[in-house]
């Protein structure tokens, strides 16, 4: 290979022109959409409020963004085929990334506690820690269905809902509580409900996974996507409309919070703080929740990594590649698909139970299609099948939205009504577009072979588009 490294030729006039055109388009597009805002005066008259600041900023962003892009492209195309981001690096990220990450996560709450103190730490551990970990777990669970088995599931949130409602309904059920009180003792159910219901929620979700699996066995690709999407909506609509069962829109409240294996997190003398001789603080429960979801997420990762090396995992991957070939090799494709749905759904159910326990309140609002879309986006963004990719994508998407909430200082610039969190869909969209441009196969797009002979040799998916010869 010859190393041709000419000095980058950058045609500034062309780039400038291009950026100007993009800015003009932005002007046309956003003049009415963003530049003007309808508002009501005190006597209910509608007035138009111009927003020149915001409008100007966005047009400027488009202009300079385009300028930058043009420059990048020029530089890139003049460097004759420099080494592609090597797949060896990808493999390294996938291999060493996870242990490093786990180590970081284990010490994370303590580090945060040490740096910002219990008051500030609550936000960092809950919003940035627990919230992101829930999505990581959901991403890893969905990855089994979408990434490994190649079954495009747009209704994953249904299993999350099944898990959440299973826990919520069992834990708040008076008959069960009374029965347990008679059988074992007062307060038992309150204290142990989470730990008993967690596996139950997983099993029920798995059961629903199989139930969804049966009718869609013969479907693939877009058809499968549509049916799973409908399934997710049906579950939500049932939860809304079957009021006697799920309490409809009002949702279920005062769901028992998880205990420290029987020891509740409260200020009483039987509480966690008193038992362990420390001062009571609500942060204890948050930290505990953090470790619970971390453990659940790691369980998901461990199981999916292990399964990939077992015959069933390899069958999933083969199924994703070619169903007919699979069948003629003696693989029972019905069972293979159903196990993928069931196991994926089970982890969704675990996450759902955890979610209900953490919130203490759930309603159908939490299980809208957008959630499914977000989880799927995390899997796709991360690079189908990559565990580390899911983590990065969750941090970007979920953490990104949380960061938006922090950008209060922008109000000084755009006015008091400006709520940065409203722009989360914009961020979402920008992420997606950028992905399609630069990494159409996900952040970590190298599939590491699950079995090796002697040495590893990865073939980056950037370099090879699959073909059938």
């Amino acid at each position, binding site marked *: 290979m010859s190393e041709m490294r000419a000095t980058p030729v950058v045609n500034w006039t062309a780039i400038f022109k291009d950026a100007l055109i993009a800015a003009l388009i932005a002007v046309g597009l956003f003049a009415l959409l963003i530049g003007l805002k309808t508002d009501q005066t005190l006597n209910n008259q509608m007035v138009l409020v111009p927003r020149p600041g915001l409008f100007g900023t966005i047009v400027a962003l488009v202009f300079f963004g385009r300028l930058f892009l043009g420059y990048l492209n020029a530089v890139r195309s003049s460097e004759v085929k420099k080494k592609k981001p090597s797949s060896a690096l990808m493999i390294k990220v996938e291999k060493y990334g996870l242990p490093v990450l786990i180590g970081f996560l284990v010490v994370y709450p303590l580090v945060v506690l040490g740096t910002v103190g219990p008051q500030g730490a609550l936000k960092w551990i809950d919003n940035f820690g627990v919230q992101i970990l829930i999505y990581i777990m959901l991403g890893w669970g969905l990855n089994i269905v979408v990434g490994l088995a190649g079954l495009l599931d747009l209704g994953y949130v249904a299993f999350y809902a099944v898990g959440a409602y299973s826990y919520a309904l069992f834990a708040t059920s008076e008959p069960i509580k009374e029965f347990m009180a008679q059988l074992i003792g007062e307060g038992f159910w309150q204290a142990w409900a989470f730990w008993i219901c967690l596996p139950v929620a997983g099993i029920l979700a798995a059961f629903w996974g199989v139930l969804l699996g049966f009718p869609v066995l013969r479907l693939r690709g877009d058809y499968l996507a549509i049916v799973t999407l409908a399934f997710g909506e049906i579950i939500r609509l049932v939860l809304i409309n079957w009021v006697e069962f799920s309490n409809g829109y009002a949702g279920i409240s005062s769901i028992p919070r998880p205990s420290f294996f029987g020891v509740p997190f409260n200020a009483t003398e039987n509480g966690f703080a008193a038992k362990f001789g420390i001062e009571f603080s609500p942060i204890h429960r948050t930290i505990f929740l953090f470790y619970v979801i971390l453990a659940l997420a790691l369980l998901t990762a461990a199981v999916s990594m292990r399964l990939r090396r077992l015959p069933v995992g*390899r069958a999933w991957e083969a199924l994703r*590649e070619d169903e007919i*070939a699979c*069948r003629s090799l*003696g*693989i029972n494709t019905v069972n293979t698909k159903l196990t993928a749905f069931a196991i994926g759904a089970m982890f969704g159910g675990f996450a759902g139970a955890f979610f209900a326990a953490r919130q203490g309140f759930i309603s159908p609002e939490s299980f809208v299609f957008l959630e499914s879309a977000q989880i799927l986006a995390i899997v796709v963004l991360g690079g189908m099948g990559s565990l580390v990719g899911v983590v990065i994508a969750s941090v970007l998407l979920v953490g990104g939205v949380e960061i938006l909430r922090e950008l209060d200082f922008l109000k000084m610039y755009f006015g008091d009504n400006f709520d940065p969190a409203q722009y989360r869909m914009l961020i979402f969209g920008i992420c997606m577009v950028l992905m399609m441009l630069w990494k159409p196969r996900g952040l970590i797009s190298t599939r590491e072979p699950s079995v090796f002979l002697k040495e590893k040799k990865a073939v980056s998916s950037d370099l090879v588009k699959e073909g059938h010869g």
Partner: protein
Amino acid sequence: MSTDMTAPLLSVRGVKTYYGNIIALKGVDIDVNQGEIVTMIGANGAGKSTLMMTIFGKPQAREGTITYDGRDITKMPTHEIAHLGIAQSPEGRRVFPRMSVFENLQMGASVNNLAYFSEDLEKVCAIFPRLKERLQQRAGTLSGGEQQMLAIARALMSRPRLLLLDEPSLGLAPIVVRQIFDVIREVNKKEGMTVFLVEQNAYHALKLADRAYVMVNGLITMSGTGKQLLADPQVKAAYLEGGHH
């Protein structure tokens, strides 16, 4: 084993297969005896692949029976048929493109739970040295010929008694075609594997075959030994036109 020495290993009787309302096989009779190489030739769209797939249970025959090793397999699901010792290299190879060659071969061995995996791996690597060099390569990046070798090797990994090959020479250079046919002869002679082969490459296929069938429009119109059909003027005119050496 329930094999009666005189009964054929595979016998297809009066099989009719439909795609919706369209009939593709109009009553096919075929026998494949233990240890034979049987070839079927026929024009495009004659129904050769359909017969291969019907033997494997997808699509299922609407009428007629398929018996293998004394068992009626007409209505058996495909994956169970695979467990009876029939392996197929389907038309168009159908390797798993994003999995490595090694993993593809592992998938081939799934019916016997990888029990003989390393032994068989060595065997197919000896047969196809090209694959041995490329065990860690993604199957999708192999050349067409290499993919065909992999498809055959993958079928061999299940230690089949009966090997079904649908157009193994499709799209291959003449020299590679010869290699593939040599391999088929070798596994047949050395391992006593029974082979049922569908081919467009009539000259080579008939030379290789113990017996052969000609299929036209969903019906068997001719049968005989490979030599007989090779010498037949009708076959010559229809399937052996032009240079064939």
